[in-house]
């Protein structure tokens, strides 16, 4: 038997093969029994499924949340590191398996103990030690650059249950520009990001831009990111933090420097007055319902700090930390019963509001650009 047929048929030897034969055996009553056949059928199916998955995710490499579709310096380095390690692993895998096939199938003979020892010490100790030391050095050498201090924008992000409090600190400012649930960064410069958390540990990660850093209550950690390509990239909390951990995401919008400056200028302003009848009525509902106790809309009486700042909510690209798109139906759904959208969300339901009230409220919120 050739070695490749050997490898292919190995799985069918022994108990599995016997089982398989039993599984398809006709019990004599005209039916074919398949109950014993799991081993035989599930395994190749699983393998097929994995292959299909691998193929299907390849086009996904252009996605908004993909480590292998880097849009920044740091993610670029990490992606390179991954490819280098993958290439190394493939070469090693082929070499080791080739060697195994060679000594067990192609050239089967006894090896002198000396040779065998040299192979084990050389291939099993010296070689991997050196290879890993090289990889480690390559990665470590890049660390100082990746952790370099930001030169442009400074911001501070706080992990809350289950949303992100964002503060921009322009050069020389003594009060931050407050926002939430979306991060806007200029392309082509390194931004400094300070991280902390409110109650529990969270972790801040934008795969397309760089590595992740944990956020701890009562402690400030830091990271810096240098996005290169303008675009929108998804970020995600990557430290389990409770009920809605999976819904704790955000978009990172990378803008060319001039657009970023213009954006920041707008972000610093107070909220615009509502335009149109619906929005004006919506504003009344907002204050009548006491939303301002938890939410801030700068330039109005709403100064709450419990929930996300809504001053420029309408200019964001998602609602409730990447959970819903930012449009009227989503806003209505959210305000009516936030917990139904996001388990555990610390915002009360307003299901006593009429449909009209809700849609006016949505018009007001959408208009906060």
């Amino acid at each position, binding site marked *: 038997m050739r070695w490749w047929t050997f490898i292919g048929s190995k799985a069918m030897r022994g108990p599995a093969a016997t089982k398989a034969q039993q599984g398809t055996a006709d019990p004599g009553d005209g039916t074919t029994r398949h109950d014993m056949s799991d081993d035989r059928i599930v395994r190749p199916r699983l393998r097929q499924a994995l292959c299909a998955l691998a193929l299907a995710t390849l086009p996904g490499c252009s996605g908004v949340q993909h480590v292998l579709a880097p849009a920044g310096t740091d993610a670029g380095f990490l992606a390179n590191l991954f490819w280098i390690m993958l290439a190394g692993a493939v070469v090693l895998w082929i070499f080791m398996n080739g060697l195994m096939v060679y000594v067990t199938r192609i050239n089967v003979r006894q090896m002198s103990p000396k040779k065998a020892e040299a192979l084990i010490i050389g291939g099993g*100790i010296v070689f991997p*030690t050196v290879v*890993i*030391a090289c990889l*480690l*050095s390559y990665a*470590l*050498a890049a*660390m*100082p650059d990746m*952790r370099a*201090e930001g030169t442009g924008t400074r911001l501070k992000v706080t992990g809350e249950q289950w949303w992100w409090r964002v503060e921009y600190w322009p050069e020389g400012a003594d009060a931050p520009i407050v926002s939430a649930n979306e991060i806007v960064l200029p392309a082509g410069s390194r931004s400094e990001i300070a991280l902390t958390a409110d109650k529990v540990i969270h972790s801040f990660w934008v795969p397309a831009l760089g590595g992740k850093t944990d956020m701890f209550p009562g402690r400030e950690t*830091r990271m810096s990111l240098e996005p290169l390509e303008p675009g929108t990239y998804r970020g995600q909390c990557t430290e389990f933090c409770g009920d809605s951990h999976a819904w704790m995401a955000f978009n990172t919008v990378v803008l060319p420097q001039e657009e970023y400056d213009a954006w920041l200028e707008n972000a610093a302003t107070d909220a615009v007055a509502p335009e149109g009848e619906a929005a004006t009525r919506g504003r009344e509902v907002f204050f009548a319902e006491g939303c301002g106790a938890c939410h801030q809309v700068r330039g109005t009486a709403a100064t709450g700090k419990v929930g996300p700042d809504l001053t420029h909510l309408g200019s964001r690209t998602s609602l409730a930390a990447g959970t819903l798109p930012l449009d009227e139906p989503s806003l209505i759904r959210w305000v009516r019963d936030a917990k139904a959208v996001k388990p555990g969300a610390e915002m009360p339901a307003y299901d006593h509001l009429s449909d009209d009230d809700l849609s006016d409220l949505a018009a007001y919120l959408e208009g906060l650009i």
Partner: protein
Amino acid sequence: MSWPKILDRHQSLWFLITGPTLWALHFCTVYAMTAIYCEKLGDEAGPLRLGILGVTLGALVLIGITAWLSWRQWDYTDDWDYEHDGLTVEDRREFIGHAGFLLCVVSVIGVIYVALPAAFVGSCV
């Protein structure tokens, strides 16, 4: 003169784990040094890196000595074989020496890897 029990080479497991123990101590020392230095003495890590270099060389020397002692205890060059699974005192002594020697090799690699970041990262930040 009779040896204290702990030094009875065929009985004491200490000779087996001296290498990894030194590795563990080195690991803890380097971590503690870094944590305290970076917290109390600022971001520029020059002296800290020198300290780590010193601790590392010290650990390597001690593991080297342990390796040498284990090698002698293994007594490989006496009969050039790995046979020491018998019930004799000699077999036990050689087994502990052999295993201790291999663990020293692992410990050397571990100590070097633990210290490697200090060779590349020059600041606490």
